[in-house]
């Protein structure tokens, strides 16, 4: 079927993609190799693609001195990602169902209500006030995911997906006496599995990568997530290197070890890097499916 010309093109495309992905891999390879190098050689010679003086010392050091902190942050990240994704998916699909269901008078109002927040937001200050003073999310586990449980974009994606499910199925269920809860849980959710997986992945990735909520709402170290721990470390190093520290009073603090930074990066990226190849097909599939009907 394929002509030699299109085969040639295909090879060219694959070659381009291969080069592009190789470029994307470079920083990651440097991080891994940096984390496995010895500190003194990194200081003296800089980074390389192959570890300089191969050693696990950095990981031993990290797990020796900060093991407790890292493990706690790691488990906090897992808890937040799991709880956050579950809550977010429940809320998002429920909202999506409401605005996609046929015959509900206020559905346009609710759709606009959500859409409005995509265009206008109150800004950081009111958001912070609302979260801390009124919802009391400061220093709580809930504070680490509740503000993110409804992503309007993903909600519309899900709503579109629900709309693509033939209405006849819903109708026949209604004739059999099913209520909305029944339809939602027994028909829409199972049929909307692909969309569901897609938005779950998006949410999971967002919750895993987030450091903004802990930065804003959390001061208790027990609630630090791994990303925030990492952010904290990097932010402090950058600030001290930028020279602003001189203004504060000539603060000279030896920055954490280079290799430790790299090891932390690897630890943070690892779970996502392992899971991503298995799950990424849902990303593509889900977005395409949801976009057919708009």
């Amino acid at each position, binding site marked *: 079927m394929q002509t030699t010309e299109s085969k040639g093109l295909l090879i060219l495309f694959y070659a381009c993609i291969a080069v592009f992905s190789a470029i994307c891999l470079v920083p990651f390879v440097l991080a891994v190799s940096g984390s496995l190098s010895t*500190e*003194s050689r990194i*200081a*003296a010679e800089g980074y390389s693609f192959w570890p300089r003086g191969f050693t696990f010392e950095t990981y031993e050091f990290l797990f020796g001195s900060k093991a*407790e*902190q890292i493990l706690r942050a790691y488990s906090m990240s897992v808890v937040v990602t799991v709880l956050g994704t579950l*809550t977010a998916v429940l*809320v998002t699909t*429920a909202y999506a*169902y*409401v605005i996609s*269901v046929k*015959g*509900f*008078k*206020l559905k346009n109002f*609710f759709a606009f209500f959500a859409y409005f927040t995509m265009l206008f937001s109150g800004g*950081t*200050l009111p958001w*912070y006030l609302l979260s*801390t*003073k009124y*919802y*009391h*999310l*400061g220093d*709580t*586990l*809930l*504070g680490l995911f*509740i503000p993110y*449980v409804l992503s309007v974009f993903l909600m519309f994606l899900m709503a579109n997906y629900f709309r693509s499910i033939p209405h006849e199925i819903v109708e026949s269920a*209604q004739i059999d006496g099913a*209520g*909305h*809860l029944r339809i939602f849980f027994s028909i829409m959710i199972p049929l909307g599995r692909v969309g569901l997986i897609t938005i779950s992945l998006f949410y999971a990735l967002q919750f895993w990568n987030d450091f903004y909520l802990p*930065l*804003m709402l959390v*001061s208790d*170290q027990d609630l630090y997530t791994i990303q925030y721990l990492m952010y*904290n*470390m990097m*932010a*402090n190093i*950058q*600030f*001290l*290197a*930028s*020279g*602003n520290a*001189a*203004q*504060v*009073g*000539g*603060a*000279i*603090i*030896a920055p954490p070890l280079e290799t430790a930074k790299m090891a932390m990066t690897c630890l943070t990226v690892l779970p996502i890097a392992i899971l991503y190849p298995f799950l990424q097909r849902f990303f593509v599939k889900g977005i395409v499916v949801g976009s057919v009907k708009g």
Partner: protein
Amino acid sequence: MKKKKGWLSLLLSAVFLLSACSQGNNESANSGDSGNSGSGGTAPAATADSGTGGTTLAPAKLKIVLYGDESNRMKELAKTDFYDVIKKEINAEVEFQFLPWTEYGGGKTDLMLSTGEDFATYTDANYMVKSVAKGLYADLTPYVGAAADLSKTVDEASFTAFQLDSKQYAIPVGNKPNSAEFYSVLVRQDLLEEAGMKQVTSLAELEQFYDKVHALHPELIGYASTDARRMLQYDFTDKNLYWQNDFIALDESAQNDQIINWFESDEFKAYAKLMRGWYEKGIIPKYAATNVPQLQSDWNSGKAMFWAGTAARPFEGAATISQAVPDAKLVNYFLGTGRPKISRGTYSTAFFVSAAAKDPERYVMFFNLLQKNQELYDLFAYGIKGTDYTLDDNGRLTKISTDSLIPDWLLMNKNFIRFDNTVPDDFIAKYKAWDDGAIISKGAGFNFDNTPVKNEETKLNGVFTEYLAPIGSGFSDYDTAFPKALERLKAAGIDKYIAEYQKQFSEWYAKSK
């Protein structure tokens, strides 16, 4: 049917509300006791006996924000020994909150101030001026008395540095010799001796040092920074210059209120030419133009020959370098003599209290504890004797735990500081005598209110980064690049900015002298 849909949406909104409101133990606990601390805490009688413990004081809750990483040991002590001692001394429960350095002077600190949280943290003069204009800092003037012990160990000039319209908006901490910051050259003495030299007393000798070491170790860079205007002033001017910011300098040897427009001065021209020479010669590496942070890591890993010095850098910096070069030795040299060292004041930083604080006086009493006596200083800076550190017969310190507590640069006070075994006696003597004969800058305590020239200042900062910093560091040639840069400066409003600065400075100068 429709009813059911309505119920479903109602249920949804209920879930939203419930999940958002369900947890609030901490906050409500705080607001719950606001009545108690508000009534008893501000009683002025409490000021007098800050030394005898908190028996007469009503209980209070304080929140101290610090920037940087919280170590495990700090976390532990904050709940045990620190907590007990502070409770005993001033009957207050102190909670320490750590924020990343990015939030210093902005970010979350701003949010916390604007939303009326009750806390205290440290500040610099710039951030103070901005925040006081918005009414975010508490006026601490009535409570300065509560810092009686601190006032004895911290310079009086440090207090004036944090006053606006003779009101005290922040309490300074720290007392360290910090005159002539960056006016000396911090030289790798080990390299100097390797090159067969003993000391560096002039620019010619410094360049000679570079040449000799460069011949021995071509992989080393010369100067690990891009700004040498202070250390080189002995060569390009007869004045004793002290910079207020990037644009404005003062001549400390003249007894008048004249400010100097630095970039349009002959001194800048002479300085830019010196730096151009350094850049061409390779004393400042070529990559410095695009990668400034690399310079500092090069210095830290022992790959540079000299750096800008301060009184404390020979021992602070040696600790870092010795990881890469164990026998590195650092010595400060001045490239000229006969000009008094200038100091901005000896403080490390200063604590402010948020305007919404219920009990500002108790905060001041807490700051007082930080610098009250050797015993408390040891506790906050070094921890528990025997567990965190040991002292030998000479009072030299050996740390057992490397975890930092309340940052030691913040507390550093020459009356209390302890040195470790690696610091030679003659160095300590030199360090303590560093400020002898130093003068306080005639601009110390002046805080520029930038509101009338805010736009100009923003634009000028842009021009500075794009055009003037490269000239000042020798990356661009003065003769070819300066005319264009000057044009940009004028367009950005340098004249208006200088005039406004001069006006405010003269007014302040007339009032304060």
